[in-house]
């Protein structure tokens, strides 16, 4: 069955520290991979996406993610976290043969210490 796993439910980092959020997927077809961010009480905003090509993708707000097919992973990184990055982060996967349906991970809540 297709699935997305975000192993970390909650992460706390200090402001200015680096960040890595993990995402692993199980998917039979060639996946399209996404990271979304959700601030409290808000909808979801796309941070970045991977469809094909360069496995290191750049997104908004200084985020990047690397697709590693051998590890079935798509981890999100940021070199220096800002207090405004505190939010919930969702990894998601879809493919052409699934009608564009997104399968989401459970989410990782990020807290930022001053």
């Amino acid at each position, binding site marked *: 069955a297709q699935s997305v796993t975000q192993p970390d439910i909650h992460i706390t980092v200090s402001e200015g520290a680096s960040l890595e959020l993990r995402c692993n997927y199980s998917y039979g077809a060639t996946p399209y991979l996404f990271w979304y961010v959700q601030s409290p009480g808000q909808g979801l905003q*796309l941070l970045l996406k991977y*469809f094909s090509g360069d496995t290191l993708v750049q997104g908004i707000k200084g985020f990047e993610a690397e697709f590693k097919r051998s590890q079935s992973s798509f981890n999100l990184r940021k070199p220096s976290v800002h207090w405004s990055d505190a939010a919930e982060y969702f990894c998601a996967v879809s493919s052409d043969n699934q009608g*564009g349906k*997104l399968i989401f991970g*459970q989410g990782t809540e990020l807290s930022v210490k001053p």
Partner: protein
Amino acid sequence: NAGVTQTPKFRILKIGQSMTLQCTQDMNHNYMYWYRQDPGMGLKLIYYSVGAGITDKGEVPNGYNVSRSTTEDFPLRLELAAPSQTSVYFCASSYETRYEQYFGPGTRLTVT
């Protein structure tokens, strides 16, 4: 562009009542989706549509119905509300499968 709009923002229903959650997009997107979000569970797909007149079930369709009479609108109907339907509901749209989905602000529904 307003993007994806949802109404209402909040609603409290009694068990057995019915309601329709409205979703409209002004981006001329073919694909539209309804998700529900429960704490610690991520988002689950309820129904989706690949164009006007075409709808299909997602992962958790029981207790819900949809219609897609126009490209812009994709309402979600709850016929007999149950406490298990207490959730935050998000509507989303995309141009095609290879394009990102744009999400509305959500509707927070409580059934008591």
